[in-house]
């Protein structure tokens, strides 16, 4: 069974045509991989389907805009993977 990071890295590679080996847990989806908000909708859709969750993109965006969070917390891939694991755990609780 692949890790959460592997799953989202594969999704990003396929969705955005980015070489898989250039995607690391430290990669920032926006700043390092150049993924824009529209492409991220495709990624979110694939993640939602793969994990059976609903990424709270609007809440995250609001928190960043309000200065309550940084984009690193949600868009560095190891952090994104951790957020997804939390959402999956919450769903099963």
């Amino acid at each position, binding site marked *: 069974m692949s890790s959460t990071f592997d799953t989202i890295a594969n999704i990003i590679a396929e969705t955005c045509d980015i070489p898989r080996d250039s995607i690391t847990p430290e990669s920032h989806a926006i700043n390092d991989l150049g993924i824009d908000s*529209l492409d991220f*909708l*495709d990624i979110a*859709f694939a993640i939602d*389907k793969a994990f059976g969750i*609903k*990424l709270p993109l609007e809440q995250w*965006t609001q928190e960043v805009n309000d200065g309550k969070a940084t984009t690193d917390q949600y868009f560095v891939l190891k952090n994104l993977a951790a957020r997804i694991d939390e959402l999956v755990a919450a769903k099963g609780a």
Partner: protein
Amino acid sequence: MRLEYFQLIDRVTDLNLSDRTIRTENTVPSASTVFEGHFPGYPLMPGVLLVETMAQTSGWLVVALNKFGRMPFLAAVKDAKFRTFVVPGMVLAVEARLEHDGSGYAITNAKITSAGKPICDATITLRVMPFPNDEIRQHMRDQAVRLGVPSVEPAHG
């Protein structure tokens, strides 16, 4: 269908919020300035307007599912296929089904048929945002009445 005004839906014939589906029926006008250029002597409904018709049908579904609390905007169109020419006077039956209700976006599968014959289909992505202002929200409510969108209780007053 008022092509020049991008008002492409004539009426909503079915809306099923539990199944997350909608149907609209729309008649291509017999005359329009659009047909004067597309094409002289051979009028065809432009494919982009067929996409817009599927997007607007999808949009009304999303508006209704959000109880007029949010507004959809076209963000992406995928796998659009145009299978048959559409000419003035044709009646277009449009169906859309919500494929995914995401956070701030929605994805639908939509298709158009005419007399049971497939016309076109596509997967539509809509951004779903708060109404930019009360004027647009009221405009959408007025349009909903015109189109026969079944009554939906508003989310906010």
